[in-house]
């Protein structure tokens, strides 16, 4: 499940990737050595997050379909849909933030 906490965790990881001093002791070359750090890379983390969002989306889809077929409880549908909505929102805001950071770097005068 994607939660604001895991989003915060993602930021911590991103900060570690962006911070060269964290990678220096391992002899890496700053940002480029991100993939070698102990934790999973940011890309893998986002992939995981998207996977769980898709999973909860499937769950709420199944509930909605059961509801349309007259089998599900409206309460279950509402909670499933809300959970998915929250998960998607959390993931989308993390994505926006990461893209904003990337754009900031791209705008940097060299």
């Amino acid at each position: 499940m994607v939660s604001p906490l895991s989003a915060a965790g993602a930021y911590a990881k991103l900060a570690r990737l962006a911070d060269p001093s964290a990678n220096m002791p391992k002899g890496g070359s700053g940002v480029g050595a991100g993939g070698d750090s102990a934790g999973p890379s940011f890309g893998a983390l986002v992939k995981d997050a998207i996977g769980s969002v898709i999973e909860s989306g499937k769950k709420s889809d199944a509930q909605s379909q059961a509801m349309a077929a007259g089998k599900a409880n409206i309460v279950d549908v509402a909670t499933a849909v809300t959970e998915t909505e929250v998960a998607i929102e959390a993931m989308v805001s993390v994505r926006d933030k990461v893209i904003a950071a990337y754009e900031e770097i791209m705008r940097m005068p060299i």
Partner: protein
Amino acid sequence: MDFLKSMQIAASGLRAQTGRMQVIAENVANADSTAQRPGGDPYRRKIPTFRSEVDRALEANTVTMGKVRQDPTDFRTKYEPGHPAADQSGYVKYPNVNSVIEMNDMREAQRSYEANVNVISATRRMIQRTIDLLRA
């Protein structure tokens, strides 16, 4: 996630109140259901009960409908000698359903449901505010 847990707990409250509403609906609908044979017992009022249940997956106490019990109080009797369910002395037993009590129970179920819905929407607002932190 803890927020989603509290949402699930409130949802269990919604489910329990729905079940209670069903029992009340049965009582109201059967308020005049007499026996099929002379001198027999009519519909007996049902009382919903709730109990706390430990949800292992959530690690929290949720609420579920317990056994639906029967109200042991006396039936109402009416003198209607021509009624098919009347006994030898001409009295018909009517269910021990009091519509005023049922209306109050219904209002209570409605209010409890609203309270649980408010818990869900407040939780949702809290999640939303937390996500908004990311956007600032």
